[in-house]
């Protein structure tokens, strides 16, 4: 008996590695600390009724932000571990199986559990405010999105201490990810972590698409809508069409593993290349859908800090929409080496075509700045840093898109440098810029600029120091995903430099955390309502906005309506309040997320009974919600009056 428990737990828990024991201890400590703090300050009820059950898009946005920063930390630690292992030849800091696990979790976490939620944080924090709405189209569904993302991410991260991490790369190519080569729960964690959070992503895509199309303030024609909202719309279009592809791909992989089907197996007529085909049919649109909102942020920031309307509004809109469609026609450039040359030729052309609208956007930003009164505020700094970085990333992308040349660069460090250039220089810098820009709006105080400047320079210098050498390493033939190399290859100096850069970026992150903590302590609430002299509706209301956002829904007549009203002195509104219709909080999304977690955990360990219990729970939550007809309420006028007087709204 004791013996069997021992056996079970040594399989169940990951053992034998000081790193993991360290993680175990710190997880337990953090949990105890959280429970203690919540109990000591009697905050359980507050946590439940203010946060866990909220359907308010602003609070959901904040939760996304916190979760994604935690994931940035986890993914960043992975990166630093990998770079440490590669700093010198013949290092044995990480054995090769651990190295495989770490590059897998790094990639998966950074794209799916860091970039995606950070993007959703911005969607939630900004879109309803920017279009003059009181919430998203489906507030309840929005909460479901968050909690499925959250529990999916938790499930994935659990693999580090229980059962073992996946190790087949961030896209888990078959046949490596099939049972034959990856037995055990690691790969299942990958599948279920992503599947569960994928439900949330799809739901958010639909939610924000409908919000933008149907919830705009009166008078805001589509062609007067702020550019960030346009970029969100384009991104949502991609989500809606691309995420079902991912769901099926991973579903088929799981069916292969669980029911012994033969989709991607080597035997039984299956075809592993078909997995590669499917995953990139989602994967390429995916990388574009995370970058489009960053483009949106740059457009807002450039206009605000140049004190000019965005240049070429129509061409910007056109570029965004054409990118979202074109992104579905390039997927084969990720596996030129596997496909037929005629197929390659076609996809090389479509890939280059997508560079055109991207280029249009860069020119428009430059023209917007041209002759503008540029103010070098933190959000603007990140935007300006982005432009050259992204140009290089785009250029190297086009180099990779030349199919015959790609046979050389494919799976080398050149590729690694390319996509980090676009993902860090484009997506991460863009989202940082957005967070710095809208932070005062959501939290009601501004961030310390000096610490922010340190973070900015560390990230930027660190970025170039890390990735420029990697292009050269790619030319020198260093392949991706090697855990070590010999002195004789001549790769040592560049690798060492690259590692230094990684630590610099890590330091940048620490400065950002410090900046946030410092600014929370020394709250500077001055002018938080409209600190940058903004142009769009979100700056017309107090910071942080009341739960209903707009006491009076604005009537829009111009593009950059708030700027126009400020110029014309039309900012006063008649205080003619009406009762406001709001959705009620609900615990169901959180509970449903919990059941998804149980489902995912059960299926990960192939404990069918547990999976079934979880699914029954999920289904029950849905039915309970379907039967519930008491889902909203009205805020009476006197309460609105009191709130507005307290926060100094309706100027």
């Amino acid at each position, binding site marked *: 008996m004791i013996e069997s428990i021992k056996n079970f737990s040594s399989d169940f828990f990951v053992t034998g590695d000081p790193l993991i024991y360290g993680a175990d201890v710190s997880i337990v400590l953090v949990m105890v600390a959280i429970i203690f703090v919540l109990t000591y300050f009697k905050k359980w009820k507050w946590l439940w009724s203010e946060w866990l059950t909220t359907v308010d898009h602003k609070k959901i946005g904040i939760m996304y932000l916190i979760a994604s920063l935690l994931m940035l930390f986890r993914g960043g630690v992975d990166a630093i571990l990998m770079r440490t292992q590669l700093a010198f030849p013949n290092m044995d800091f990480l054995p090769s199986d651990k190295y495989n696990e770490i590059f897998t979790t790094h990639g998966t976490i950074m794209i799916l559990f860091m970039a995606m939620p950070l993007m959703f944080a911005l969607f939630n924090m900004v879109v309803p405010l920017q279009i003059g709405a009181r919430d998203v189209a489906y507030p309840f569904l929005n909460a479901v999105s968050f909690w499925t993302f959250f529990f999916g991410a938790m499930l994935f991260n659990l693999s580090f201490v229980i059962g073992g991490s996946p190790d087949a790369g961030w896209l888990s190519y078959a046949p490596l990810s099939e049972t034959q080569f990856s037995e055990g729960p690691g790969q299942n964690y990958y599948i279920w972590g992503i599947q569960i959070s994928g439900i949330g992503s799809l739901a958010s895509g639909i939610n924000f698409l409908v919000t933008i199309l149907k919830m705009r303030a009166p008078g805001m024609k589509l062609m007067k809508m702020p550019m960030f909202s346009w970029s969100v719309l384009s991104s949502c279009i991609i989500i809606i069409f691309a995420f079902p592809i991912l769901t099926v791909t991973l579903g088929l992989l799981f069916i292969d593993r669980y029911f012994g089907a033969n989709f991607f197996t080597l035997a039984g007529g299956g075809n592993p290349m078909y997995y590669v085909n499917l995953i990139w049919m989602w994967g390429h649109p995916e990388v574009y859908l995370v970058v489009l909102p960053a483009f949106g942020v740059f457009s807002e920031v450039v206009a605000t800090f140049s004190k000019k309307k965005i240049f070429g509004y129509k061409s910007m809109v056109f570029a965004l929409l054409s990118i979202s469609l074109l992104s579905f*026609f390039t997927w084969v450039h990720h596996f030129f080496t596997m496909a037929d040359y005629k197929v390659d030729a076609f996809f090389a052309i479509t890939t280059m075509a997508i560079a055109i609208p991207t280029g249009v956007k860069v020119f428009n930003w430059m023209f917007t700045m041209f002759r503008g009164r540029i103010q070098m505020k933190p959000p603007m700094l990140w935007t300006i840093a982005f432009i050259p970085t992204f140009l290089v990333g785009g250029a190297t992308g086009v180099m990779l898109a030349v199919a015959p040349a790609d046979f050389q660069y494919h799976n080398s460090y050149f590729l690694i440098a390319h996509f980090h250039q676009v993902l860090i220089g484009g997506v991460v810098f863009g989202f940082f810029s957005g967070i710095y820009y809208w932070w005062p709006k959501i939290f009601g105080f501004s961030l310390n600029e000096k610490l922010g400047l340190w973070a900015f320079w560390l990230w930027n210098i660190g970025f170039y120091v890390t990735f420029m050498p990697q292009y050269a390493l790619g030319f020198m033939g260093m392949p991706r995903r090697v855990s070590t190399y010999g002195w004789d290859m001549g790769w040592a100096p560049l690798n060492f430099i690259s590692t230094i850069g990684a630590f610099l970026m890590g330091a940048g992150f620490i400065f950002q955390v410090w900046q946030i903590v410092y600014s929370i302590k020394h709250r500077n609430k001055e002018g938080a309502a409209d600190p940058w002299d903004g142009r769009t509706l979100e700056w017309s209301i107090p910071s942080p906005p009341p739960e209903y956002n707009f006491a009076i829904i604005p009537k829009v007549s111009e593009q950059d309506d708030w700027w126009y009203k400020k110029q014309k002195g039309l900012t006063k509104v008649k205080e003619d309040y009406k009762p406001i219709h709001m959705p009620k909080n609900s615990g169901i999304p959180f509970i449903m997320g919990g059941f998804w977690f149980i489902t995912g955990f059960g299926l990960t360990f192939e404990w069918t009974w547990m999976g079934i219990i979880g699914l029954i729970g999920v289904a029950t939550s849905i039915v309970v919600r379907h039967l519930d007809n008491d889902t909203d309420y009205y805020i009476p006028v006197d309460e609105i009056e009191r709130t507005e007087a307290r926060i100094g709204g309706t100027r």
Partner: protein
Amino acid sequence: MTTEKHTEHHSSFQSYVTGFLFSIVLTIIPLVLVLNDMLENPLLLVIILLAACFQFVIQIYYFMHLRENKNRGYIVLALIVGIIIVVTVVGGSAWVMNF
């Protein structure tokens, strides 16, 4: 709201019956063609696929009230893009995987 509802176009019993009859016919034609080997392959394939596509249109037109939907503009646009993606996914995969 109620006033608005009444101005909307309403589908009738008749339109449902028409739709139903259409779809039965469009099911029977390919069935008969296939079971009796009445045509040669490329043509047969085209005809049965066309019949399926027609049914798709019929269901949307007669059953799914798309005509009366306030947001039909957006929905039709989304459907068109959706169909483009469907064709890309099915046709593209077949092309990429077939050599």
